[in-house]
């Protein structure tokens, strides 16, 4: 270090540039905030899109689970009941499965009362998109779109949704978020679909689906957006067994029959197994019976929440998705960070029946720090309502 007048600052002194980059590339997402406070070069690197793509290329990005959690209500044990009486407000929690780190993302100023109820989450190229939902106080549908950039740790406001929709399906592909189905402000089930382009910050309407699909669920499989189940305006709650499938390349829908158990609510409950087949999170692991929902974290790993029995506190689990159908998933319970188990993280209590009639909700999504898409049969970000039916 005899030469003090260094014109070009190395990322890491004494290490060649590419090796310094290698080290920083391997930093887990949770360490990025500290790293960006080290010096200017680190900050500029870590905040750059190039760094994200570099990490992604070498497979160092990873999926983090984003959960909509009740955050008010003190640090009581989560038995749900308390939350129903006091009205909880909802925040965004991030769980990084690799470091086992729990974290919370501050919300935008536009949502002083917490996230809109039933808002949808989508992970997209290192960003988390929050769209729609109901105002937590007035229960009016909102059309706001907010994008959280994991690299910057900041929110930006996107272009509002083109129409008031609730309980629609979402899926993301490249830098676009697809939405379809749900219902309008008069509770008419929808056949419509839209795509939001994050780069252009613009919405474009898709062709119509084959049928109305209120309370449907979205999944991205390979180059297709699957809009699963749902019901029509005239047959509330009778969930359909079919799916409309949108192909990103052809821009067309096709309809696929018998992919979902008729009558079963698909909200936050659809998982794509390794064979690319749709199945339900419920019953994947017999020890997690109630209110099960989850998401895939890439590399065949899954993140699941649910209770062991009616009334039991909610637990969080990670496991490996097994290929053979009869083996299902082996889940390991994970430690929940302080403040992430208490306040009724588990927005949904064990007692499903009791809450059926209430506006009871929780959302979950693969928020992606990463949107790695390998193996084709990966479930895209899922989000939204779990099991609870509205009204």
């Amino acid at each position: 270090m005899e030469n003090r007048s260094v014109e070009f600052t190395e990322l890491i002194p004494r290490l060649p540039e590419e090796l310094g980059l290698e080290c920083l590339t391997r930093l887990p997402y949770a360490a990025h905030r500290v790293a960006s406070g080290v010096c200017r070069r680190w900050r500029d690197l870590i905040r750059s899109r190039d760094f994200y793509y570099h990490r992604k290329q070498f497979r160092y990005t990873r999926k983090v689970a984003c959960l909509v959690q009740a955050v008010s209500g003190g640090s009581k044990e989560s038995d749900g009941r308390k939350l129903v009486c006091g009205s909880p407000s909802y925040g965004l929690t991030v769980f990084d499965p690799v470091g086992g780190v729990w974290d919370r993302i501050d919300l935008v100023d536009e949502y002083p009362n917490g996230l809109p109820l039933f808002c949808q989450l989508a992970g997209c190229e290192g960003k988390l998109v929050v769209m729609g939902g109901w105002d937590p106080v007035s229960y009016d549908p909102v059309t706001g779109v907010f994008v959280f950039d994991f690299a910057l740790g900041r929110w930006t406001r996107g272009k509002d949704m083109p129409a008031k929709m609730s309980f629609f399906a979402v899926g993301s592909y490249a830098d676009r978020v697809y939405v379809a189905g749900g219902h309008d402000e008069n509770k008419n089930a929808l056949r419509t679909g839209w795509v939001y382009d994050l780069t252009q910050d613009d919405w474009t309407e898709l062709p119509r689906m084959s049928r109305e699909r209120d309370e449907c669920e979205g999944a991205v499989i390979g180059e297709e957006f699957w809009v699963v189940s749902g019901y029509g305006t005239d047959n509330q709650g009778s969930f359909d067994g079919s799916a409309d499938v949108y192909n990103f390349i052809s821009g067309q829908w096709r309809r696929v029959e018998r992919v979902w158990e008729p009558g079963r609510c698909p909200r936050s409950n659809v998982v794509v197994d390794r064979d690319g087949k749709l199945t339900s999170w419920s019953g994947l692991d017999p020890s997690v019976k109630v209110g099960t929902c989850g998401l895939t974290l890439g590399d065949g790993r899954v993140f699941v929440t649910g209770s062991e029995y009616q009334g039991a506190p909610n637990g969080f689990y990670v496991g490996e998705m097994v290929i053979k159908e009869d083996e299902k998933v082996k889940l390991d319970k994970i430690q929940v960070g302080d403040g992430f188990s208490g306040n009724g993280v588990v927005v949904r209590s064990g007692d499903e029946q009791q809450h059926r009639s209430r506006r009871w909700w929780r959302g979950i999504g693969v928020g992606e720090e990463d949107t790695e898409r390998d193996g084709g049969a990966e479930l895209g970000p899922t989000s939204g309502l779990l099991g609870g039916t509205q009204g």
Partner: protein
Amino acid sequence: MSSSIASSSSSSSSSSKKEKKISLKTSDGEVFEVEEPVAMQLEIVRSFFADNEDVTEQTVMPLPNVSTAAMHGILEYCRAHEEFRRRMPEAAPEEEVRAFEAGYVDRKSNEELKEMILAANYLNISKLLDFLTGVAAKRIENKSVEYVRAFFGVENDFTPEEEANLRREYEWAFEGVDED
């Protein structure tokens, strides 16, 4: 680059014969006699022997960018992995590998770690390089900004004002870090 590994003589018959050794000379002049399969994990050595037909068993390959200390660390790692491979050619005994690697890095100081990253890069041992850079990243996880600067010897070039802003913006990132 030819893909015929170390040509005909070595790979097929080495197991039956007395183990062949490769001589490697570090920057400070020490000569290491390294078992062939271990030395061949060093890509620079492998290609040297694959590309030069006139090298013999007596050839001492100079490695001017590698210190004796770094060489010891590198060979320890490569020998352990060769051993794992010999015992379980199909799939490495994951738990044992992990236990070995954990103990291995525990004994390395930050300076040693950096020196070995440089050496592993020069010797082109992608697996070790991968492992070491991962270790370096791991060492600064959950640490304070000050710790990370000290660890890598990075100078703080933020103005006091910028630093104050960063702290405000990332307040929570400055809390709950491990003790340095």
